[in-house]
């Protein structure tokens, strides 16, 4: 088990380095940061001076090595756009994204599993069919469209919920939270539905098909024959055995929720790291882009690692096989 984890960590580091290299090779296609840093009256000498000082004249492997060297000491540089340390900006923005991702993930998981089980058990009921048809909307509509629709209906027409931002937040010193104020909670509703809808329908459909599969198995039939209650059969015996694929998907989707919050954050002007990244791309703010991409890849790698470990824990068969190989 330990050897397995160490091997996985080693692989993860290689993946991280590769992601960084690809990212740095892409930056020059995003544009020239000098355009944004100096006004239209700039002189050629100024452009050259700044370019040299920022290391933009170096080939990208050199830029990457410099970045890694500094990052190793915890220094991610200064944002070109905001002129403040990148680490400070990301730390400021992360709570917004993480809280949004947490609420969306929670919604997706609870509602998704609940509806999945319901639609599997009541396979032919009209309610289950209606839910299945509606879930197509969640899978097929693009996020920004759902966001704009929700803003239009609940923000502009009904005026129940705020159209943008995070509302009032409480500063805990190292974390800002929107969970403690009414406006903060109200502001969370639309973005978290927008962000979580796709995952919710995905989990629901997955749970449903896995459940249908499991419910056909002999041991379920025997469990019924033994006279166990329907609740016990459905939730203790059936649902538990559908969990392995659901954990994989949920794990990967949690990463996706954080990484792809970009669109939702842009539509709702949610002050998280996704919006920060979009601004950085438009400004060609290389230090912020680099730090963000590295952070996201670290997160994906960590989640994958955790999922792998969870497998072994949930499925005893993997544990036994692992011991022999």
């Amino acid at each position, binding site marked *: 088990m330990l050897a397995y984890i160490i091997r996985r960590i080693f692989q993860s580091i290689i993946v991280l380095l590769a992601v960084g290299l690809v990212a740095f090779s892409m930056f020059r296609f995003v544009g*020239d940061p000098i355009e944004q840093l100096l006004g239209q*009256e700039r002189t050629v000498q100024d452009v050259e001076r700044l370019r040299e000082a920022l290391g933009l004249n170096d080939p990208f492997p050199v830029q990457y090595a410099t970045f890694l060297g500094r990052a190793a000491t915890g220094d991610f540089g200064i944002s*070109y756009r*905001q002129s403040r340390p990148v680490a400070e900006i990301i730390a400021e923005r992360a709570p917004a994204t993480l809280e949004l991702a947490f609420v969306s993930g929670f919604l997706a998981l609870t509602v998704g599993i609940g509806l999945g089980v319901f639609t599997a058990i009541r396979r032919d009921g009209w309610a289950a069919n209606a839910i299945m048809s509606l879930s197509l909307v969640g899978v097929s509509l693009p996020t920004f469209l759902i966001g704009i629709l929700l803003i239009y209906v609940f*923000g502009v027409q009904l005026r129940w919920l*705020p*159209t943008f931002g995070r509302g009032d937040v409480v500063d805990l010193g190292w974390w800002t939270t929107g969970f403690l104020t009414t406006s903060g909670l109200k502001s969370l509703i639309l973005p978290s539905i927008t962000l979580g809808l796709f995952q919710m329908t995905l989990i629901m459909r997955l749970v449903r098909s896995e459940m249908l599969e499991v419910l056909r198995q002999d041991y379920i039939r025997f469990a019924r024959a033994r006279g166990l209650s329907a609740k016990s059969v459905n939730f203790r015996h059936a649902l538990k055995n559908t969990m392995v694929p659901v954990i994989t998907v949920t794990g990967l989707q949690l990463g996706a929720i954080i990484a792809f919050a970009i669109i939702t954050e842009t539509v709702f002007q949610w002050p998280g790291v996704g919006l920060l990244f979009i601004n950085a791309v438009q*400004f060609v703010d290389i230090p912020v882009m680099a730090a963000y991409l590295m952070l996201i890849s670290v997160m994906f790698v960590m989640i994958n690692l955790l999922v792998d470990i969870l497998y072994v824990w949930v499925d005893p068969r993997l544990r036994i096989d692992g011991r022999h190989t």
Partner: protein
Amino acid sequence: MFMLRTTAMLTLATLATGAYADAHSTTLKWARAGDSLTLDPHAQNEGPTHTLAHQIYEPLIIRDVTGEFEPALATDWAPSESDPNVWTFNLREGVKFSDGADFTAEDVVFSFERAKSETSAMKELLTSIVEIRAVDDYTVEFVTDGPNPILPANFTNLFMMDKDWAEANDVVSVQDIANGETTFAATNANGTGPYTVASREPDVKTVLEANPDYWGVGEFPLGYTTIEYTPIQNAATRVAALLSGEVDFIQDVPVQDLGRVGETGGLVVKTAPQNRVIFLGMNMGADDIERDNVDGANPFADVNVRRAMNLAINRDAIRQVVMRGQSQPAGMIAPPFVNGWTEELDAVQPQDVEAAKALMAEAGYGDGFTVQMDCPNDRYVNDEAICQAVAGMLGQIGITINLNAQSKALHFPLIQNGTTDLYLLGWGVPTYDSEYVFNFLVHSKEGDRGSWNPTGFSNADVDAKIVSLSSETDLDARNATIGEIWNVVQDEQLYLPLHHQVLNWGMTESVGTEVSPEDDPKFKHFSVN
């Protein structure tokens, strides 16, 4: 029951006090697409950054909503009678910075020196100044390297800082991003302006409170005691925030939503011509150009081709279809309030496809040619759609366009490096004088001039005239030279002006303001209706 009633009474009482407080304080909730990049007033020469700085800091002179000079920290100014190289500015007395320090000539000298320093973004506007002297506490003299009749025009975004405050907080020099520095002035401010910063989270929210000790109290409307500034990047969300009443005032209203906002009860859209002309430029100087299908020749080198293109463009159609009425067709690259603008020069030639085809045939391109057009897609109002429309119109005279629309961060380097043959660009004239246009767009690309002229146009006579403008003190002679240069530019069809961009501000009916051509609301001029 008793409990319930007491609670209800208490709630009512709280509500009542809340309403009472509201009668004395007025809040303006303001949104635009971008945020200010820094609070350091000399670190960025950029619209949203200057706009926020105008509320907190002040220059010697500002421009009012009509574009005219308005005294701010200087009460009056004039060139010295004895020496044509000197401008004298008399400063306003009794002005205090928000930390209580007095504003004096020493601060002016310090601020200009700071703005002229190596890492300042404002230094290009001050290159002609060789010395700044404090004559007494309230008089400052600017010595230039030659007579500079339009010097004050460079001062309208040049903000005054307190020397002692800067020294105490170690911000005497402007932040140098390249050295990885962070400074106190980037996140803190101490100005003489009508508002002070109550709180600021970059990109999220900035709250300004009225400065009770402001020198202009009683002189300006100062209708709002609190300004809440939230950048909202997505245009649809920004409009939704105005429609839902969450903000009172937005800049950058997308043209497709103007009707919607205007028709909503309680909301109004106000428009004004903006200080920005959209135009096309061509590489006319090269012997052969790379991104076309003509070998060994450059079609743009022939003035007939350039004139044909000018005739082929239907600017009214662009205005109606692409810009939904929100543009003013242009014949020259200068908005009407710029010195040197004339109605004649700005007159637009109507589209004449037959005449254009004849000119093409005369130039030997009767069968047309193919060329690449470079275009930004995130810089100007509907920029990519303008290029598509122009491509269609040029197609009518046989010029096939390969459109290359991309982000501004990729587009502008093409113009800077001269690796484009046909491109779209927008130009504003912050000094309100044609010399600025000539320096950057018309002068040959050499030295500090012509940095935005990748056309290859180079005319020694014109260059000499442009250089002479900076030191000509006889304003009539100077204006005559400006007219001569414009005539060459128009005759040569150096550029193809398309239109003057129009600015739109959306607001609730209670907001009392007109639109400023610089797109920089100054909230001290705002009243509450």
